[in-house]
C-alpha cells in the first residue's frame, strides 16, 4: 500500500515568506508526528497528533510554527515569516498508535530559506 507522502519535496523560500508543508499519512494511522532534521543530526520532535487532536506541540521552536490536522488525516505544518535558521528537512511520520507501533516516515520536505 501507499506509504507516507509529503509535498513539496523541496521548497526554497525567501526570508520572511510563509510556507506550508503537507503530510499524507498512511490510511488509518491514528498518530502523526512532525520532526525537524538539521544536516548531520537526528530528527528532532516538533509536534504530534492523535487523530485531529494536537497532543503535544512543545517542540515547535517559536510561535511562527503552526500545525494542524483538522480531519484526522492530512496534516499541514505552516511556518510564518521564515528565517534562515528554519532551513532543514521536515519529516512527517505516522503510526497506528500504541504498543508495538513503529513510525513510518515520509521522504521529507527540504526547506531552504535564502
Amino acid at each position, binding site marked *: 500500500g501507499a506509504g507516507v507522502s509529503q509535498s513539496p519535496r523541496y521548497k526554497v523560500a525567501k526570508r520572511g515568506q510563509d510556507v506550508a508543508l503537507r503530510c499524507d499519512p498512511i490510511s488509518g494511522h491514528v498518530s502523526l*508526528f512532525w*520532526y525537524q532534521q538539521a544536516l548531520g543530526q537526528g530528527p528532532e*520532535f516538533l509536534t504530534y497528533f492523535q487523530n485531529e487532536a494536537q497532543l503535544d506541540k512543545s*517542540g515547535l521552536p517559536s510561535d511562527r510554527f503552526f500545525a494542524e490536522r483538522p480531519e484526522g488525516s492530512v496534516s499541514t505544518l505552516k511556518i510564518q515569516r521564515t528565517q534562515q535558521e528554519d532551513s532543514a528537512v521536515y519529516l512527517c511520520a505516522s503510526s497506528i498508535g500504541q504498543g508495538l507501533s513503529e513510525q513510518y516516515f515520509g521522504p521529507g520536505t527540504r526547506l531552504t530559506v535564502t
Partner: protein
Amino acid sequence: QQPVQSPQAVILREGEDAVINCSSSKALYSVHWYRQKHGEAPVFLMILLKGGEQKGHDKISASFNEKKQQSSLYLTASQLSYSGTYFCGTEPRSGYALNFGKGTSLLVTP
C-alpha cells in the same frame, strides 16, 4: 531527553559484525531503531518494548536492558547495503513522539 549513541562512526569490511549502543537517563517505554541513507527517509528496523516484546526484521537483532535504560543493535555478517546512519529513538510513554540520538554512521566496505 536525547539518548546518547555510541560509537559515533564505524567502518567495517563486508562480513564483519558491529554493535551500536543507545542509552537514556530517563525511564523508557520503548526503544526504536532506524537506518537512514543519505537523502532518504529513516527506515524502521526494530522496536523493543519494556517487558520484552519486540518486532523487527529477521536479520536484525537488538536488546533492551530496562534496568539500565540501554539498548544495543547487533549487525552481524554485515553487507554493503547496511551502510547508512543508524538512529535510536526512545519513547517515554506509549504512543508518544520519539527522542532521537545523534546517530551512528556505519560504512561497510568491500
